[in-house]
């Protein structure tokens, strides 16, 4: 892992000088800003059972589906298309360092974007000064969920980029995989054909991978070790497949 930090800092730098990153950031922050204003308007009309932070973080899938592909689609697909993968891998750098370094950079940026939404809560605190609107529990739970689930979402983006030659295909594949992961769980969980006894193992696996349910638990303050394990192990798996995909393409190109 000697070169991990070299690659990480290089990649973060390259993301920061890339105009596309700022476009993504502006879209992300304005989208989340609209969501937040909308929530505040609802709260100002009538008192609600939940805190604004809870409703706000419930919309996490909106930016995830668009920002994660934007941030990650370039990382390995572009290197391969330009041929710079060849120059990169003929230096004393391992494939693992390259993949993990790029993954780390995308994750840092993803978290940076989410951290910027902290400004919304700060503005709310500064101008509304209403302690009922700022419940720290769901807020901390929400950010924790974003941080933990982000590990997996970004890893899926890197995997999509590792198996595709063009950015566009990588972006679409990443979107499809994230969509399947976030909404497929609740769809399958509700499916009647999985209710039978014979399907019990499948059903329990599906119940285990309910991303939307995980979110509910996190904001209620329930941080289940099994859920953490789900995200950490899937992240490791996605990154392992990415490394294998990069190496397999070396053998068969």
């Amino acid at each position: 892992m000697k070169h991990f930090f070299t690659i990480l800092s290089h990649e973060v730098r390259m993301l920061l000088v890339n105009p596309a990153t700022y476009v993504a950031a502006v879209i992300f922050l304005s989208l989340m800003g609209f969501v937040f204003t909308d929530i505040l308007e609802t709260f100002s009309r009538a008192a609600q059972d939940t805190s604004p932070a809870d409703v706000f973080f419930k919309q996490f899938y909106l930016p995830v589906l668009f920002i994660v592909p934007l941030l990650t689609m370039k990382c390995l697909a572009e290197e391969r298309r330009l041929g710079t993968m060849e120059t990169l891998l003929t230096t004393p750098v391992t494939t693992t360092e390259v993949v993990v370094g790029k993954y780390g950079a995308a994750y840092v940026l993803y978290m940076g974007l989410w951290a910027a939404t902290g400004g919304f809560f700060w503005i709310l605190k500064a101008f509304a000064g209403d302690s009922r609107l700022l419940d720290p529990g769901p807020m901390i739970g929400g950010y924790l969920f974003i941080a933990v689930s982000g590990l997996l979402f970004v890893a899926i983006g890197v995997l999509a980029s590792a198996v595709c030659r063009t950015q566009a295909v990588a972006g679409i594949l990443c979107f499809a995989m994230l969509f399947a992961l976030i909404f497929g769980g609740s769809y399958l969980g509700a499916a009647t054909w999985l209710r039978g006894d014979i399907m019990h193992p499948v059903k329990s696996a599906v119940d285990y991978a309910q991303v939307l349910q995980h979110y509910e638990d996190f904001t209620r303050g329930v941080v289940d070790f099994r859920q953490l394990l789900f995200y950490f192990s899937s992240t490791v798996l996605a990154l392992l497949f990415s490394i294998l995909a990069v190496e397999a393409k070396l053998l068969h190109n």
Partner: protein
Amino acid sequence: MTLLEQNKPAIEVSHLVKTFSGVTAVNDVSFTVEKGEIIGFLGPNGAGKSTTMRMLTGYMPATSGSISICGFPVATQSEEIKRRVGYMPENNPLPEDMRISEYLYYRGRLKEVPRSKLGSRIDEVLEVCDLKRVRHRIIGQLSKGFRQRVGIAEAILAEPPVIIMDEPTIGLDPHQIIIVRDLIASLRGRMTVIISSHILPEIEMTCDRVLIINQGRVVAQGTPAALRREILGHVRYEIIISGDFSSLNRVVSLVDPNITVALQDETDAEGFKTVVLTTDKDEELGEVLLKKLIEAHFRVRSLNRQRPTLEDVFLAATRRSWDVIDKK
């Protein structure tokens, strides 16, 4: 430098084979490159030059055979190899949105150049490659000649003992080719260099030794002069004369009985003809030939010993390998 590295040739390749889903790209290639040598890979498109080079860098595994660089086998110690090889791939891929100095710094860090030495080393390679003026320019906006020099600067950055460059002069104008050629020649003795090209005069000028590859096989190797002798094996004289052509055969056989005469049909307005004489003798026959022709009352306008170019060698060698393959 360890003891292992000292007495070994820089590159040793034996019985190297690479197949891609049934197609053999490199077929039983063996060669050795000594330290400090500049060697040229020559071959038509698709001959297996790039594939061989990629295998030398450890980027692509070989199907069978072995490669060792500075005594380290590529297959098992690819980490050691990567520290000892500077590689510039075909078409020289570079990131578009970085400045030259930033790019070299990043590459230097990846190649494990100590941080304290990196700054001065970057200045040095920028100087050598004449890139000082453009060091803060963005690579994507550079012309082809500059990009190519950035690739070379990057390859020599970590001062590796072995440098492999795939078509370093492709797409350059003649002036830039001379600069790149001088640059490569300046590495002679310090580093072992392998370059591939299909521009023949360039290889002839810079390389100590030439390896001609065709259809995945080494069809000829040696110094340009040795290759000329080995493959063409004869010397040609071109003379323009006028006189009694019926006695020409007799006159030239006095010089060398095995000489063959090829008369051209056209005679110009003053009765001069171009005649090509081919002989196996390597020594200079020009003077004797001239004397005998004048004694036989020929009017001689010119006599010229033709130097076969590497191009002739290349064409002869690749044709020869096709003949061999056709016979099989």
